Each structure stands twice: as C-alpha cells, then as structure tokens.
C-alpha cells in the first residue's frame, strides 16, 4: 500500500516541521492553537445558551371576563390554555378575544367577526399566502424585518373551534379545527361562542422569539348599529342584562 505509506511519510514530515524551531513553524503552531481554543470556547458557550432558554409565566386568571366587541376594536386576548412540547422548543397559546354576539335586530342576520390586523410586540405581522405563518413584521415606521419568519403561526377562529378563518386579505381553503392544532385538545374543547386565536411559537433566541410577547388583534364585528348593539346587550343572557325581549320596545 504505497499510497498509505506515502500519506504516513507526509504526516511525519508535517509533524516534524511543526515541532521545529523555525519562525514559520512557530506561527503555524500559534494559529493552530488559537483555532482550537476558539472552537472549544464556541462549544462551551453554545452549551450554556441552550441549557437556559426563557422561563415564561403567563397571566391567566379565573376571574377574567371575556370581553364583548361591537364594531371594530383592538383587543389583547386572555390566555385560556398553553402547552409546551416535550422538547421545550415549541409553545402553543390559546387567547380568547371576544364573545360571539347574537342576531342583529335590524336585519335578523347573525353577527360575523372578521380578523383585521395582528400585531406582535407593536409590529404588524405580514403572513405568508396561507394566512397563518408569519413572514415578516412591520413596525410603526414602516420598517420590515423577517425575524419572526416561520417561527410564529396564528390560527384564527371566529366562532368556536369549528370555524377557522384567516385575516382579511388572505385566503386559505384548507383550514383545520382548533382541536387539530392545539395539542391534547378534543372535540369537547369547543370554545363555544368565542372568538379566539391559537398562537404557535418556535423558540429562536437569535431572532428574539423567546416568549409570548405582547399581542394585539384588530377584530371587527358586523354588528355596528347602536340599536342592534343596545338590544343585543340588553337581552343577551350570557354577557348582557338578560331582559326578556318582550319587555323591550323595539321597532
């Protein structure tokens, strides 16, 4: 095996040169030592960052009331469920945004909710064509960044777990019910008569995706007329005064 012995001879020659006293061999030794040390340092630092992560505590409360939105409003959402994957790299949050209101008095049509803009840490999210996966975020100065790209998914639901939607200006014909998205949810997690979102976040400390952050959702209710809103609030037994409709003079 002449080629093997040739490689062995070359290695011996190189090793002998490195151990030599010449200036060249000294510089080579210093460069090699520095390179090895930098690699060891990087390895140590990398192990420290991965170990810590971000310790998150949410703010759910059993006394929080679900808000009622008429017209257009910006709401932050109330945490009603959260889950972390077993590898700690992905988290799911369920945020309740509003009660679903009733039928409009003016035209007997059911009220409909639409998702408008979604903000994360005061930056408006721009989604990919699926209307779910974040592509970029735009701040108030109009400057865009792609830190959140593919790290955040927002699943919107306009009336319970079986009514998925995407924000306005997006279309997606293949949306899933909430129990298919949120881990360990079943059909009994109906989120009945609630407008809510499920936020899925994948940890990335380099892109600063390390906690839930500050969310704002602009939602719009088709119930906007004052008479409709007053009548709904006066007669609804879930979130309103519960007055018998027969006792309300409505024209």
């Amino acid at each position: 095996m002449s080629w093997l012995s040739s490689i062995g001879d070359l290695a011996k020659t190189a090793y002998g040169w490195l151990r030599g006293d010449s200036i060249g061999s000294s510089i080579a030794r210093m460069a090699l030592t520095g390179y090895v040390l930098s690699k060891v340092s990087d390895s140590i630092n990398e192990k420290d960052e991965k170990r810590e992560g971000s310790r998150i505590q949410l703010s759910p409360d059993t006394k929080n009331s679900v808000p009622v939105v008429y017209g257009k409003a910006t709401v932050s959402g109330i945490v009603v469920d959260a889950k972390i994957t077993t590898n700690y790299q992905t988290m799911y949050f369920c945020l309740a945004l509003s009660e679903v209101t009733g039928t409009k008095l003016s035209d007997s049509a059911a009220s409909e909710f639409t998702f408008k803009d979604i903000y994360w840490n005061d930056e408006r999210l721009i989604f990919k064509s699926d209307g779910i996966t974040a592509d970029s975020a735009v701040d108030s100065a109009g400057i865009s960044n792609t830190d959140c790209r593919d790290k955040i998914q927002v699943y919107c639901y306009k009336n319970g777990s079986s009514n998925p939607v995407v924000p306005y200006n997006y279309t997606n014909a293949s949306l899933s019910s909430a129990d298919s998205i949120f881990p360990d949810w079943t059909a009994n997690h109906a989120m009945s008569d609630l407008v809510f979102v499920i936020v899925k976040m994948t940890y990335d400390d380099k892109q600063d995706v390390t906690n839930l952050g500050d969310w704002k959702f602009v939602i719009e209710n088709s119930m906007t007329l004052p008479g409709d809103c007053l009548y709904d609030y006066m007669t609804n037994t879930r979130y309103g005064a519960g007055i018998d409709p027969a006792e309300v003079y409505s024209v």
Partner: protein
Amino acid sequence: MTINLSSYGSVESGLFVKIVCSKYKATFSTPGFTTETFLFSDMSREVTIAGDLYTPLGKLLSITTSSSELKISGQEVSVTISGLPDSSLEDIQASRFKGSSIEIRRAFFNPATGAFYSITDNPMLRFKGNITNLSLNEEYSIEERTSSNSITLICASVVDIMSKKVAGRKTNPDSQKFFYPTDVSMDRVPSLIGTYFDFGKTK
C-alpha cells in the same frame, strides 16, 4: 304610562299579584322542587287576566304604596297576606320563595258591570321584580287559643336588581360549564396560574 279615566264617572280598581316560584315544595318530605304559580288579588271576586285566574283575598292582601316617577328608579314593595291557616305554613317554609319573580298589576273596572274598562294599558303593570326576603308572623289569641299567621314578602324591582347585576362569562371551568356543560376549553386555566414554562430549554 298613563291611563285616562276622565271620561268615566265611576271606577273600581284592584291589585293583582302573580308569583312564580321555581322551587316549590308542598311538604318537607317532598323529594324535589317544582314550579308553582300563585295568583291572588285584593278584589272580592275572581278575575281572569290574560288567561290567569286570580284568587280574591280582599282585605287579607295588602301592598305597600309605590310612586310614579318620571325617571325609572328602583322601589321596594312589601306584599302582606294575612289569615294564613296553620296548614299552609309547611309549604311556605319548605319552598324557596326568595328569588321568585313577582308581578303586580292594577286593573280598572266598571263597578256596575265588573268588566274591564276598554282603555289602553288596562290592566297596567305596576311592579315587576323578585322576592328578596320574607317573614312569617303569628298572632296567637290566648282566649280563643287560635293563631293567625301572616306572611310578608319584601320585593326588589328589576331596576334595583339590574343595577347590581354582574353578568358575563369568566375564564374558569365553572363559568364555562354553567353556559356550556360539555365544553372543557377552560378546564386548564386554574392549573396555568403560577405555572412556569422553560421555553427553549435543552434537556
């Protein structure tokens, strides 16, 4: 609302009380509650209003006065029924009258014929609310060795009740299941309080 009686030479009026008790029991040993409607008036004859036949109690029924105001305000009304027999006391104590709805109407009649006057809003609703308290009083006659019982119902109007009402769904399992018994969406909220998540940690 106002009723114009100026064109009538004589008027007879009566007060009609309707109580709907959703937790009525005839005796303490009765297994469950039922819904019972009580209809009585201070008239001396039976009167039917909107299909409900009111029992005449005459002077045994007294109702505190209420005032008509321009602005809607809450008023408390007391309804006292006297001359209750001892046999009625058990069902009064076994039932839960507190929280029952009460409506008091006033009707105007032709005293000659006993017929309702045909005018708008007759009979008119004078009071609508809920029973907030009740008291039983006994007057015992030593000489006759008999007792006479009376019940007083303290009633708060719907205006008062609504001014104190707190409605809305809370983010907890009990509130969610009160409205949707099979919905478990908020079952984990209590366990999430104070929970830490090590997001991004490597094992």
